[in-house]
């Protein structure tokens, strides 16, 4: 364990504490601007901040940093470009923290859809010498011809080539630059009952952030049909949406899908800006929850079929075992620990072994 790493982690912990303090006016202003500009709803930002207050503790950071702390050799510091997504508030935070924990130089392309929240932390990190001033921007052109030695980002498989073409055109990275690309885009919940707690957790896991984000549940496997639980479940959803109204309106394609389902006889529930349908199709468009009646066998089949896009399988009961995956608890769907592994990859570990990455 080298002193530099310990010092860095201590400064990081101080920065996070300072950032999340109730009297941090910078963060408050960032939240206000985000909400006033209708980038995200107040409820979604508040939820995210509350989750971070709970999960960004020193114990978990040290747990995440364990491979770094145990690493004997000095880590060669490299320039890491993080392309932050903007579909959820602060969704890029994990990559920023991983880069700092691993001791690399952070450079961040901040999403124009979430331009205030992360910079409110970055300013404190810069003050503490953990990132450089001007190491973040919403305009990638600002990084033109500054070679990145690794790239972290998340997005659809189809977009990977476009992203690298753009980075190559800007002289930032080439197709040979090591890249940690996360492409999973949906999660599955496996439930075995329709008890109050289960349905409330299910509603939260599906409808938080309007269903966006790869941790959001887009498919539920349950032993009962949608038809049999439609009324009850929609009551839970309504209760949830009263507390956290959906921020984004669904495009007309959603209603057109409803029309289609009606025409071909697919059972469904229409919720104005959300659709629940009884199909086992791959979740592909936002605002749709696929309801699948079945047990573990059906779940296993779906996990295998959709492994390419599947992020997480959630279970209500912690004792439930699912073949081939390590399920997470449904209650944690929208409040993951900071060390969770998107696409099964620990980003700190990945950055630690950067020289071995392709």
């Amino acid at each position, binding site marked *: 364990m080298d002193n530099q790493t310990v010092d860095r982690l201590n400064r990081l912990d101080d920065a996070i504490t300072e950032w999340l303090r109730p009297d941090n006016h910078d963060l408050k202003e960032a939240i206000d601007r985000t909400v006033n500009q209708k980038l995200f709803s107040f409820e979604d930002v508040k939820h995210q901040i509350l989750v971070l207050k709970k999960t960004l503790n020193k114990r978990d950071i040290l747990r995440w940093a364990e491979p770094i702390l145990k690493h004997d050799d000095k880590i060669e510091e490299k320039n890491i470009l993080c392309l932050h997504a903007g579909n959820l508030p602060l969704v890029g935070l994990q990559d920023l923290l991983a880069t700092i924990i691993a001791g690399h130089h952070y450079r961040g392309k901040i999403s124009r859809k979430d331009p205030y929240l992360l910079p409110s932390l970055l300013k404190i990190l810069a003050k503490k010498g953990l990132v450089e001033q001007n190491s973040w921007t919403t305009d990638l052109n600002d990084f033109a011809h500054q070679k990145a030695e690794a790239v972290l980002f998340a997005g*659809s*498989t189809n977009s990977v080539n*476009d992203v690298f073409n753009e980075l190559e055109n800007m002289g930032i990275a080439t197709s040979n630059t090591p890249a940690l690309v996360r492409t*999973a885009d949906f999660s599955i919940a496996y439930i075995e009952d329709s008890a109050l707690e289960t349905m409330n957790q299910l509603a939260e896991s599906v409808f938080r952030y309007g269903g966006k984000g790869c941790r959001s549940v887009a498919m539920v496997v349950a032993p009962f049909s949608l038809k049999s639980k439609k009324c009850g479940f929609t009551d839970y959803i309504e209760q949830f949406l009263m507390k956290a109204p959906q921020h984004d309106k669904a*495009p007309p*394609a959603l209603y057109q899908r409803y029309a*289609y389902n009606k025409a*071909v006889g*697919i059972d469904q529930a229409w919720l104005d800006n959300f659709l629940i349908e009884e199909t086992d199709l791959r979740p592909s468009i936002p605002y749709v929850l696929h309801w699948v009646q079945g047990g573990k066998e059906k779940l296993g089949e779906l996990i295998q079929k959709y492994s390419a896009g599947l992020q997480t399988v959630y279970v209500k009961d912690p004792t439930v075992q699912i073949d081939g995956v390590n399920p997470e608890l449904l209650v944690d769907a929208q409040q993951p620990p900071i060390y969770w592994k998107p696409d099964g990859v620990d980003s700190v570990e990945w950055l630690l072994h950067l020289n071995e990455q392709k």
Partner: protein
Amino acid sequence: MPENTLQNTDFIFDKSLSFRGKAEKVYKFQRQNSPLYHTFSDHFSQPDSESFDPYSIPLLPIRAFKEAEVIVQNRKPELLFKSSGTGSLNRSKHLVGDADIYRRSIITEFTRYFDLSNSAILAYTPGYNENRHSSLIWMLNYLISKSGSDFSQFLPVGEPIDPALVQQIADKGEALILFGAAFGLMDVIEMGDADLPAGSVIIETGGMKTHRREMTKHELRHALAEGFQIPSENIHSEYGMCELLSQCYSIGSEWFKTPPWVDVTIRDPEDSTRICKPGEEGKIGIIDLANIYSCPFILTDDRGIVNEDGLFRVVGRWDSAELRGCNFLIDSD
């Protein structure tokens, strides 16, 4: 006249009638006779009956052909076409209510560009007996049967084209029209000795992604021209699918032209009622009036664009996962 049958479907191919008028007639027929389409279209604004606009007709997602029996009520199918694919669940089924309409559609559009009476059709595809449910194979079989050449035939897949056959066609003064999927034609080139007489024509029917190496259309055209030693303006493409009874051809280019009874528009994937401007990518929307007994108003999952002249190009498949998209990468604003 039974309600589910039109006394005469000649109007579909009648050039003297406007597309708008024909589309209105077919739309009303569908609304009356297809409960599936009726239910679907009920959820959209109805086209104005005073000044009917075909572009306001709701387009049914093409996956209906996988998930439902798409045929007007009480009509018995004369043909059944199935899309290629593995597993019955993933295959589209087209129940064809009137085989004559398909025959007429095939001949009318093909002879708009090619002389069937003096051409030998060579189909480098599986034969009809091996794949009776393929609409493409059915079409090729029909063209072979209607061609004026004794040399028209399905070629054995996996073997090079017999140079003696090519010579015989040339000696007879017939034009040679070679049909094949892109990957199959590339295989023929790789087998060697694939030169064709200079006036020969190649019609590729898609299937680039299944080749060992993915190619752009431009690369494919260049490779086919070079491989078969014919000018690139003789490399054409056919756009068709199991769910459609009409084909579109691109003649010597990548841009497809529709038959007079077909209309293609590009639709916004987030709102199929919005028509994209020329150059804007979206889903290919098709009105194929030859589909009168199944569904003529279809939203495909193909990604395409139209140009200012109304010709369209197929760019690839619309991967809907990117609509859900976990994240946004490099902002486009």
